[in-house]
């Protein structure tokens, strides 16, 4: 399709590049095609891809409106993120390749009908331009959605204290991928800015191809990471790649001809004609609205959310001055001391982490439930946020609500097997570093637990302080 060009009158103007100054003037007379005509196979392919990509890019799926508008639309970070993530879902509630096959089938049928109805048509330059505009903006909005939550590093937040105190092998690969990137927010911001710059390049038709040079390796890497780390976003990543590839096709022949085959190359000669003032102003208005909503408003929402601590962890206030790692100095069941033991059949807590927010996690010889997730979600309901425990099989997580007058902690297990998912403790704090918990477990055994906070030094943080140059003892 890209080799077809509207040839204007023979160009006899002086070329301005200094490299050409001493060359002859160019002679561009004659072409073997009628001016502007497309070949038959080009028209056919275009009709197919036009229908196919319209179906993939324009929000036509009712599930999208159900999810995005279901709870009202407040232009929040959450709402805009999901608005920007349209994917047609036909066979299931998550995107699948089977959907692509169905859309391709529909497009094939549509192509046949269209070809029959439109026999006399010689070119589709206008429609091709319009299709590319739709894909450019669809791709841009998709990249901006992910770009800003990296630029303000929230998508992969810094690991929680519980994560730092979880064995490496007790985390699944998707979780490890996320927290391994979480420890370098500067790098995540860099990745986000690359995505945003690439998205902005798509907003102008001349810089769009340069944008695809960035997008294809970047999103290609996202795709490979999803496949390797058992992530669930590979269908969506491949969809974005297909958009970028289609945009590249427009210019790829020209670029190869110039730089690989090293022959004189004509540029794209189709310039869209927006002559009427109505078109001029609506274009400007639409473009401005897009930039306002998905760059400035969305960017601001990301910045604000990041300032509040991000959307992955709970913002609930934990018990004052309890955050830290605690060893379990004493563990009594029915008033009998249970010492530390290597026997896996004897239940005993090993260590406890209190987070800054109202979560505590317990390491014991009990295996927690492994809850898995592998897609990016923004969960607005604080109580539903699950980032800290999904993909982790090393600690049992409890969210707690504290009654500071009655000195009770009501624990609700997030990934706890069995009936011990709900515990009620009476707590006391003899000093700032000690917490004593007393309560009953599900079998009505009394528990008396003495927790002692330790000032653990994490190599991850200590090594970062002085660099790895100086000798370190930990």
């Amino acid at each position: 399709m890209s080799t077809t060009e509207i040839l204007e009158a023979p160009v006899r103007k002086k070329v301005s590049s200094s490299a050409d100054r001493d060359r002859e003037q160019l002679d561009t007379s004659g072409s073997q095609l009628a001016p502007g005509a497309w070949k038959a196979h080009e028209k056919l392919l275009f009709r197919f891809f036009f229908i196919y990509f319209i179906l993939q890019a324009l929000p036509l799926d009712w599930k999208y409106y159900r999810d995005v508008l279901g709870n009202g639309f407040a232009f929040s970070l959450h709402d805009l993120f999901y608005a920007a993530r349209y994917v047609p879902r036909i066979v299931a509630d998550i995107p699948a390749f089977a959907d692509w096959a169905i859309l391709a089938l529909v497009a094939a049928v549509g192509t046949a009908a269209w070809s029959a109805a439109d026999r006399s048509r010689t070119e589709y330059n206008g429609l091709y331009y319009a299709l590319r505009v739709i894909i450019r903006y669809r791709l841009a909005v998709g990249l901006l959605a992910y770009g800003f939550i990296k630029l303000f590093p929230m998508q992969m937040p810094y690991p929680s204290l519980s994560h730092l105190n979880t064995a490496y092998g007790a985390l699944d690969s998707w979780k490890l991928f996320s927290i391994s990137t979480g420890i370098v927010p500067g790098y995540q911001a860099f990745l986000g800015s690359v995505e945003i710059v690439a998205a902005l390049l798509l907003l102008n038709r001349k810089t769009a191809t340069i944008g695809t040079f960035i997008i294809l390796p970047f999103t290609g890497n996202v795709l490979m990471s999803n496949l390797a780390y058992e992530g669930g976003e590979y269908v969506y990543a491949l969809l974005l790649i297909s958009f970028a590839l289609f945009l590249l096709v427009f210019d790829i022949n020209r670029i190869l001809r110039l730089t690989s085959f090293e022959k004189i190359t004509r540029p794209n000669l189709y310039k869209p004609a927006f002559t009427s003032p109505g078109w001029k102003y609506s274009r400007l208005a639409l473009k401005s609205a897009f930039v306002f909503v998905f760059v400035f408003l969305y960017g601001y929402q990301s910045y604000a959310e990041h300032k509040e601590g991000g959307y992955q962890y709970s913002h609930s206030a934990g018990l004052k001055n309890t955050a830290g790692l605690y060893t379990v100095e004493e563990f009594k069941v029915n008033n009998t001391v249970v010492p530390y033991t290597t026997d896996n059949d004897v239940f005993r807590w090993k260590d406890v982490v209190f987070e800054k927010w109202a979560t505590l996690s317990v390491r014991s010889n009990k295996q927690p439930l492994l809850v898995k997730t592998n897609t990016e979600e923004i969960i607005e309901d604080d109580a539903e946020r699950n980032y800290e425990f999904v993909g982790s099989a090393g600690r049992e997580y409890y969210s707690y609500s504290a009654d500071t007058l009655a000195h009770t902690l009501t624990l609700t297990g997030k990934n706890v097997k069995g009936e011990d998912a709900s515990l009620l403790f009476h707590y006391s704090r003899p000093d700032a570093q000690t917490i004593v918990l007393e309560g009953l477990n599900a079998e009505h055994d009394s528990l008396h637990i003495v927790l002692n906070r330790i000032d653990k030094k994490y190599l991850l943080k200590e090594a970062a302080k002085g660099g790895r140059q100086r000798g370190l003892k930990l």
Partner: protein
Amino acid sequence: MAEHTDINLTEDTREHAPVLWREYQRILFRIAFIFFISISIPNSVEWYKHVVAIDWTNLHYRDLYDIARFGSGLNIFGNKLFGSTLAGYANWIITLIAATVGGLIWTFIDNRRKNPVQNYNLLYYWLRAIVRYRAGIGIIGFGFTKLLPVQMPYPSTGLLNTDFGDFTAQKIYWLSIGIVPWYQIFAGVVEVTAGTLLFFRRTTLIGSVLLFGALGDIVYVNFAYDGGVHGYSSYFVLLSGFLLVHYIPQLYRLLILEQTTLPVYYYPTLSKPWQRITRVSLKTVTIVVFLPLFFYLQLINFWYDPYKQPSTKGVTALRGYYAVTEFRLNNHVIPYSPLDSVRWSEATFENWTTLTFKVNRRVPLDLSNGGGDPQRDINRTFEVAGVGGGRRVFHYFADTIDHVLYLQDKYKAVADRRNVTAGVGGDAGEAQGRVASGKRKKDGIYADDWISVAAWEHIGDENKKIDSRAASTRRDREFAKVKGFDERNRMVLKFDTEDGRRVILTGLDENQDSLYVVLDKVDRTYALSASTLSAGKY
């Protein structure tokens, strides 16, 4: 793809470049020429010594890797500016200053000639060819250790049982790739492909874009994770950036200005047969050595002697993660507590010759990258480098007849020099700053003859313990270097086990106190998926 009409150009299609360069272009070129030649050729004597000494009949992958990986830039003026190495970049700035001075002198000389030069088309061609091959060979060397995934090993059992916060950031990054060998292969394919594309003119643009993007990302990663390889990665960004510069004016004109664009190229006419033959042979040899031969050597390395992991198989029965059921020091039982500063709280035996255990005591740490090119198992430190949390890692020589393990601490107070041939680091936190141990009396297990001759016969020759296909002159040479034992902590433990599920260790620990440890194997399940690709043969 073919245009239907071709514009009339000069008959000679080997060149299409301006005959007369402008003054500023000629000056810039002279500076660039000196600069890029300086940074494309090896600047250390070690490299030349190494290349001359390669035994081409008995190769190791590292022989080829060391050809590709060398330091460059003018270092005759030193490597510091204003007293600092500027994160390693001072060398580039010094080289640039020297190149500028050289370029200006060259300009001066040229301007005084009767017929000053009109263009540097030919020299520019050769400069780009040299940069292309330097970048291509270099990145292929880097790429093969990922394509056959050995650069970032899958975590050992000891590492799987170390808490996330007890690693350095560099270690976290390396492990995050180690856990997905297929992704590492993909990264290797990208790097090798980018390098290969640079060997050919037609694909130089795409190769440079790929190299620029991939290595640009790696530079940032190295700064973010304190990875230590930012200098060498930036080097490729610089080289590929230089190659890209050639295309930018043309692409700008074509895509942004949307005007008809003429390509710019110049290829020297090699009319004489000896010139053509030389060119084809050099190119063929380079490609054959750095692609299929390198691939084969790296494959052997992956199968039998993955360079970062110890390659010797461990005692078959001693494998896995063990709880420490009983622990007696000098016949005094110490009950289990993960907080005890003497008692082992858990132990692992790896697939290879390593024992690890965890103790709640502060120990000096090896914060290096654990890489380089050591041949002996004891110097392969990926299990101990960047690892904290009280984990102790010991190499063992196993006497399987008398059932004795001769253990040495993999942590060493005075670190080895790594990447000697490269002349440049790649290993942060090296020689300086290790916490030095005190002088130890050479008695008991610290005597020089702590492993008897009979025991050595039972243990065998470590050099011969890998598959013969992985044998190489390089490995033989390193093993032939007569070394006494380094100053390391030692233990000598007799092991007693039927099927490996219960192991009893008796002997002397590093302080020569008597130790009695009962280990019971725990069948651990990990949330992390096991690797579908295993390096090494154990």
